[in-house]
């Protein structure tokens, strides 16, 4: 075979050389930034975390994408460094690159994100509340918070490339963080109050069933029951996910080799790998790798038709609310801030830092739940929570800065 067939790309070596003028080089993760940018422009009903999850689940060509290249395109040499993928795409990286790209391409203001858009917090919160098996009634609360701090405004949500003054919005993380804040508003989540409220609700539910056999109206939402049901499912799914990570296959049938010289070696190795995989695959006992399930938007689903009471969508918050001056407020009078002072994002790259041991376990649990659903670190959600809290309690914070970390609402 002539060398020209396996010379790889003409400029592969140049491409990888550090070039200070052009910081934006096309990479595999960058292709996802492009995709996300396009999806955002089109306002498609898909979030970045979903996109990345589909990539990892193999529904979107990414890993070993060169398999699908036309025959004539033969990768070798330094092309391998560009096209072979050996790590899952990282949310932050794809997100940041997308914004750089939009600015680089000098794109105008993106199509507006309005209340009826999928990416609007009101919509996303609805989806995530469902997935988290939380009462629909909580949606009123997320909407209220959105309104109060102005994050539902078109100008806040719409991307203007190159505008360094506006904060870049992570729609999915924002919606998740909103739900966390609402849960803190209503249940405090200090490892005590939420269980106390739950006992109270349990009592009420028992009385109700005893007193009126045909009681209509939704049961009181019991935090404890919800926690048990959701934790169980979460643990099962997390365990599955962890095993999938360990069983993840990175290579494909088509081997990659640097040069003609090591082609035969690589092919031989590949053959041995396939043989061994067959040998031990037969001893696995499992019925081989099942067909990939279709991509699904919901990872956890709860059905109201289940009679075991494991679906909380229709449950009521009446036990934890009260009316004051014609307005429904939470019975919970307290709130604890995740952090009194936000970090300087430009200095350390983050608004806040998360250490599990420093926070209540209930708080950690809800972070873990959304961390699983969005496939991102709990600390990202924690950061957004801090950001929302600081907007929400802005006035009070300006007054009492350093000393109080527990506020009365």
């Amino acid at each position, binding site marked *: 075979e002539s060398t020209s067939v396996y010379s790889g790309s003409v400029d592969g070596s140049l491409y990888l050389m550090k070039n200070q003028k052009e910081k934006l080089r096309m990479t595999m993760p960058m292709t996802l930034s492009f995709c996300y940018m396009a999806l955002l422009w089109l306002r498609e009903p898909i979030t970045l975390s979903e996109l990345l999850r589909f990539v990892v689940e193999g529904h979107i060509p990414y890993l070993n994408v060169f398999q699908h290249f036309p025959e004539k395109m033969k990768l070798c040499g330094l092309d391998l460094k560009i096209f072979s993928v050996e*790590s899952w795409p990282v949310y932050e990286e794809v997100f940041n690159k997308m914004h750089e790209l939009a600015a680089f391409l000098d794109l105008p203001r993106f199509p507006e994100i309005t209340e009826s858009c999928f990416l609007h917090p009101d919509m996303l919160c609805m989806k995530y509340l469902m997935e988290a098996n939380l009462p629909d009634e909580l949606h009123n609360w997320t909407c209220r918070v959105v309104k109060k701090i102005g994050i539902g405004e078109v100008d806040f949500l719409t991307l203007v490339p190159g505008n360094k003054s506006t904060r870049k919005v992570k729609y999915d993380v924002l919606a998740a963080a909103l739900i966390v804040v609402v849960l803190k508003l209503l249940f405090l989540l200090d490892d005590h109050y939420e269980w106390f409220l739950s006992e109270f609700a349990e009592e009420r539910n028992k009385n109700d069933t005893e007193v009126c056999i045909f009681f209509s109206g939704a049961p009181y939402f019991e935090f404890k029951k919800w926690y048990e049901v959701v934790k169980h499912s979460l643990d099962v799914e997390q365990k599955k996910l962890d095993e999938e990570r*360990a069983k993840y296959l990175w290579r494909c049938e088509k081997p990659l080799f640097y040069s003609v010289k090591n082609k035969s070696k*690589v092919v031989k190795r590949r053959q*041995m790998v396939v043989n061994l*995989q067959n040998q031990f695959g037969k*001893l696995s006992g499992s019925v081989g790798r099942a067909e990939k399930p279709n991509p699904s938007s919901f990872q956890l689903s709860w059905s109201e038709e289940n009679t075991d009471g494991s679906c909380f969508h229709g449950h009521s918050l009446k036990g934890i609310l009260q009316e004051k001056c014609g307005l429904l407020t939470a019975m919970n009078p307290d709130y604890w801030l995740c952090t009194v002072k936000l970090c300087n994002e430009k200095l350390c790259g983050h608004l806040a830092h998360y250490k599990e041991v420093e926070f209540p376990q209930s708080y950690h649990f809800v972070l873990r739940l959304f*961390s699983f659903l969005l496939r*991102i*670190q709990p600390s990202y959600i924690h950061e957004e929570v801090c950001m929302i809290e600081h907007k929400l309690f802005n006035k009070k914070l300006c007054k009492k800065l350093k000393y109080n970390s527990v506020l009365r609402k």
Partner: protein
Amino acid sequence: SSHEHKLNFRKSKEACLSYIQDALLQKQWKRAAEFLTCYIESLEKDYSREHIGPSEMIRRIGTEILWHHSQSSMKEFSCFMEQMKTLGVKRYLKVCLEHVFHLLCNGQIDEAYQNLSLAESWRFGEQTAIQDKEMKLIQAYRGLLDYYSWSKQKNILLEHGEDGFSDLAVEQEMHSYFRKAAVNLKEIIKIPGVWDLFVKCYVDLLEFYGDHNEARQVLNEYAYNSKFPANPNAHVYLYQFLKRQGESKKSLVSALKILHDIVPSHELMIDFNTMLQKSKKRKKRRLGLEVIFAALDYAGWKENAKAWSCLARQVKQIVISDKHLDWIKKEWNSRKDWWPAFHFSRYLAKRNWQENKSLSYEKALVAGILLGKDCKYFKYISHQGCKAQLKRFRMMKRFVNRHNPVYLRISG
């Protein structure tokens, strides 16, 4: 489980290995195979930089799984081993040797022998010299299998001899196995190490062909050469050889003395004490007492009636002669604080009486002498023995009562 959502090749393979490890530890072979299947692609990223790279991992894990998995056959196992041999030339001989061990465990002696011969003929540039140690081992094990064949032929010959047949062919084969075995066994035991099995076989060969001098030299080297690691068995083998040869008590004693120094709890200590007690030399008898006391310091000897009878006999003999009570005093001095609870508790008295009357007899005698007639062990046993109207217990009681003042002098 980690909530880490960043994942790369290395981390996922690390996670895979930890799942494999868990499955292996719980003997879940199917599950281990499932995860190993996913790990195998690491071979394509084997840069031989790590101490134990992917190919070695796969070899070790795969060997374990194939060895234990119910659906795996020996044929599959051998096929896998052959593949593994091609993966790492630096470990080639080691893998060959391990394969041979597995074949031997499975009873496939002939196949093991073939593999050993094949491995012996392997040459690979400078690797041959580097893997010299493994080569010696391979030759040694072939020698061992040759010994095994020799042994079989010898038995056939002996059978035929009984029947009155003489079989020249068998005899010649036997001699040829001997020559092959001897050459290799001799080589390996030259290298400092623990070669118990090889030494025993070699000595067996030498003894059969009447080369007792060589046998003695080999055993002496094995036991006394300081370059070799301290090995109690070496002294045992030497002692057994000397005994077979009918050597003098003196040489037997010197062989066992070292054994006593290294392993005071060795089972041969009974023989040793018996030998020493009978000696005319005072020093030897003194040593005998030391030896038997030392052996009984160990929990494994607590219920050994023979050992106790040795001690009882010697103690009784010293008490009767009224000479050398200071020997007992010295031995008892370091033991009087803990032997009572260790050997002579009331609970043990009851148990010993129930389970082994001879044991309780011997022990009671010793207890009575060392702790006096008021000690609970002696009191209980002698009472039970007299109640059961057993003569020897009555006599023992009388003996202890008569010599009671002795205990005061001992414990003084």
